[in-house]
């Protein structure tokens, strides 16, 4: 199956399927009200998220899972739906789904079922997708996420979104449309990769909330190691169901917004769509129940040709897979069964890592840092570990260290588009620098200079750099006195002003001394000397 499969270019090549159209809620068209209407239209947002399970092999076959491998190089007989092949469930994928379910406070169904969902599409070789329509592996969960609000955006607001369910299902292959030659190429590498479909209830009201919820989910999945969560690589795919209504009225007719490949675009797409729908209603129009694509270039959503909107998926139980049974603990295993082969919820629960929200609370409590700093730390992969490693190697207060980590280090990393693990300045090296500042060997402005130098010439210690560039504090009192005297002598007007009581001018003289010493003078000392000389 290594060859590329050539198929005809479908006339409707831009048709993108609806992945799902489920809702138990009642939707209706909000009626435009008289001008006296007291309540404003507000947005309502629900999300359907497909998370690719981080696993060496696919959901039902032994093929490897890898991003950007040569086309059709990771395709087993089953993935290509050769006749007579059968699905064999990958335990790792089940465990990942159970773990994710537990982390999102879901009820894990002891027995779940697989179903076939039928539709004809070139990148779905079997003509159906194996999914969990009737009874998914996890249901009824809750994701707690936080937003920074308030005027200074430093108030942490906690919000909840209900997780309706998590279901295991197969990913499809990819269709690559060659418009020029009017053909479609099919790559089945992705066909059969395990997905967790998470359905978030419409508990959110704007793009920012949805983005924060997805960001939190990303962090949770990454902490669990159940999904790499990269949206641009398609490991996490988010579709938004957006509607508007007046808070005391039934939900409005929704649209589904697709083609969103970053958290930032998610927020923008949703906010655009809410505004658009409000605009439609206010102009007396009706919102159409349709699928729309987000165009990141224009920042708008546009209707997609959605021919299959009315498709009947003809769901049917998957007859080749027995019910999926997970066990609460080892004692509930049936006698004679192999504990290594079974999925045991208790074991997975015990192995759950520290989740982001717990980690943030711990950081705030343990180190006395501000909540917004805890967000910054946790949001960046490896930054918490970096921060804690620096703290281990220095006596400086965490609240003094945090600025270095979240501003200097993170700033440099962002500027160079690097990850924490790629930082040329190691935690012990930064700790040494901070120690030198703490013990009065260098001033804070020199410390920043040294940090930049350490970034540039990786491997050199702070003390090496200070020595080489002669950046140590001027400790010779006579020399310091002489520099101060020189400044006093050459600025008679300022001295006069100080003597007349304008003490603020003293800062200018301190600055001039620092300029002369290249920032190597102890500011407190300089102030004392200057005060003496101008009194």
């Amino acid at each position, binding site marked *: 199956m290594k060859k590329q499969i050539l*198929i005809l270019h479908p006339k409707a090549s831009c048709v993108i399927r609806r992945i799902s159209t489920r809702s138990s809620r009642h939707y209706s068209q909000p009626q435009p009200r008289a001008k006296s209407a007291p309540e404003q239209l507000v947005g309502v947002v629900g999300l359907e998220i497909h998370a690719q399970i981080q696993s060496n092999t696919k959901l039902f076959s032994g093929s490897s899972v890898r991003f950007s491998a040569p086309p059709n190089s990771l395709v087993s007989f089953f993935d290509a739906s050769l*006749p007579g092949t059968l699905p064999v469930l990958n335990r790792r994928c089940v465990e990942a789904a159970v773990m994710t379910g537990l982390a999102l406070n879901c009820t894990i169904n002891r027995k779940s079922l697989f179903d076939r969902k039928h539709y004809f599409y070139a990148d779905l*070789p*079997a*003509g159906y997708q194996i999914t969990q329509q009737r009874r998914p592996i996890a249901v009824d969960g809750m994701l707690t996420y936080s937003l920074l609000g308030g005027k200074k955006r430093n108030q942490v607001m906690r919000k909840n979104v209900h997780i309706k369910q998590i279901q295991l299902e197969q990913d499809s292959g990819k269709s690559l449309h060659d418009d020029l030659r009017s053909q479609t190429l099919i790559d089945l590498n992705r066909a059969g990769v395990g997905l967790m479909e998470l359905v978030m209830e419409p508990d959110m009201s704007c793009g920012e909330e949805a983005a924060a919820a997805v960001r939190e989910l990303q962090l949770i999945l990454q902490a669990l190691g159940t999904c790499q969560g990269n949206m641009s690589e398609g490991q996490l795919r988010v579709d938004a169901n957006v509607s508007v209504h007046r808070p005391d009225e039934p939900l409005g007719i929704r649209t589904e917004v697709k083609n969103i490949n970053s958290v930032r675009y998610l927020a923008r797409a949703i906010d655009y769509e809410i505004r658009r729908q409000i605009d439609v209603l206010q102009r007396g129009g009706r919102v159409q129940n349709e699928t729309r694509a987000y165009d990141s270039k224009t920042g708008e959503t546009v209707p997609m040709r959605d021919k299959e909107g009315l498709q009947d998926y003809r769901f*049917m139980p998957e*007859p080749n897979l027995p019910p999926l049974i997970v066990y609460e603990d080892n004692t509930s295993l049936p006698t004679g069964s192999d504990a290594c082969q079974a999925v045991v919820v208790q074991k997975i629960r015990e192995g759950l890592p520290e989740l982001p929200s717990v980690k943030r609370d711990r950081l705030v409590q343990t180190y006395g840092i501000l909540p917004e700093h805890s967000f910054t730390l946790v949001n960046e992969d490896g930054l918490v570990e970096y921060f804690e490693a620096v703290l281990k190697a220095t006596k400086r207060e965490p609240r003094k260290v945090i600025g270095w980590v979240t501003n200097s280090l993170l700033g440099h990393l962002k500027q160079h588009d690097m990850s924490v693990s790629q930082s040329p300045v190691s935690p012990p090296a930064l700790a040494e620098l901070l120690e030198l500042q703490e013990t009065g060997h260098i001033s804070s402005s020199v410390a920043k200079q040294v940090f930049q130098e350490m970034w540039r010439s990786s491997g050199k210690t702070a003390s090496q750099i200070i020595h080489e560039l002669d950046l140590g504090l001027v400790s010779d009192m006579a020399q310091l006195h002489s520099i101060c005297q020189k400044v006093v002598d050459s600025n008679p007007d300022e001295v006069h002003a100080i003597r007349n009581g304008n003490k603020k001018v003293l800062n200018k003289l301190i600055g001039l001394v620092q300029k002369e010493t290249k920032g190597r003078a102890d500011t407190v000392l300089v102030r004392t000397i200057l005060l003496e000389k101008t009194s």
Partner: protein
Amino acid sequence: MLSLTLRELSLALREGSISPIELCRKCLNRIKKTQHLNAYITVTEELALKQAQEAETRLLQGAPKGPLDGIPFAVKDNFCTENIKTTCASRMLKDYIPPYNATVVQKLLDQGAVLMGKTNMDEFAMGSGSTDSAFGPVRNPWSYSASYREQTGVAPDSDWVVSGGSSGGSAAAVASLTSYLALGSDTGGSTRNPAALCGVVALKPTYGLLSRHGLIPLVNSMDVPGILTRTARDAAIVLDILQGQDMRDSTTVPAPSSPTELPEDFDVKNICIGIPKEYHAPGLSEETLAQWSRVADMFERAGARVEQVSLPHTQYSIVCYHVLCQAEVASNMARFDGLEYGHRSKVNTSTEAMYTTTRHEGFNDVVRGRILCGNYFLLKQNYQHYFVKAQKIRRLITDDFKHVFSSGVDVLLTPSTLTDAARYHDFIQEDNRTRSVQEDVFTQPVNMAGLPAVSVPTALSRLGLPIGLQLIGPALQDKKLLSVAQWIEQRVGFPSIRDFEDSSESRNEIGVTKREQTSAV
């Protein structure tokens, strides 16, 4: 040599009194002589001779791979065979060459068994006559027996009887002595039905006992690989080799027992034979009924308890079977779209148009009809009314059997088919669906319940055609069923086709020229 049983042959091969190559050649010759039966879609002559050569080397060294080393076998053309065409008797897969072996095929090859070819069938196993094949119908070997011809007095080419189906090619291959065993598949009776009509033994094993990996599915929840042999003892030997859990098929279960030969003398004194009253179905021929009574009496005389029992939901079985069958067919056939493999239409105005014409050209009317019905049953507004309801009835049917077996009945005795084999021209007067309803009436409830069943030939009808009876047992009691089948076999004295062989070669020549489609690797 050709009419030996597996066990006799295995012994002769080990003793060196028969050479595998010689045996293989004889079978190949016989396949050629019986070409008019149209039992094979593909004859793997070269491969068979190569395998036979290897078997000979092993046997000469006294190191056979197993009891089947050197023994010719045939495989229904819906089991995948690596590098050998696997067509499902359909235009859709007319040139399809799978890259792997079905587990059951691999197990036989691992034993050193010699593959003679792939046998004809109803397209995608949908049928009960082996008349709906893209390669033409299979003819029942007994059509050419002297007994039948004397009785009818008609030229066999204008008046031959169907082999039954859908594994008609496999049954014909075993009956006409071109293979000692054959694999069939059994979804609603597809192995037992042709076995009964062709006078051979068929085992439909317990669901899950044999791997379906590599069996191109009809109805996944009912399909089982079936075993066709000349005796119950032979079927037990093959069962021992094929049974057991397969990592590639999640619905398989471990074998309940280690390989053991059937006991020569099975004592029926303490067993209870159930006669389900609902199986006195309309259309049951007098002769078949007579055989049923005769064997029941035999059991009674031998000291077995013979009781009338009731399986009250039997009458609903066939209609529910069809709903479930067609729903799964609609789903299973979805993959045949012309993209990855199989037939692809030349129409290329759009992908959708290509799908449509590919499927129209590739499938016969029967397959297309079932797909259409199945999709209808699965529509959102119909699902509860048809599919779910049929599943519920399926549960009731399963419970019927459970009740009977838990009330002390060991084995149920029923006819396998309503009558002996129909004449081809009579058979095709009715459509495929009607025929399936008639032909599968006694066999498909067993598939609904996943139970083991055996069809064993008991006598020839007045026309000289075989009549078979069916034994049904509780799940995983396959071996016991075969023991009971053997007990019957030992007492009814069913003749070998050899006894009725036409000595003249002339009609075979006609058969060859009449043959419409031949294909060989």
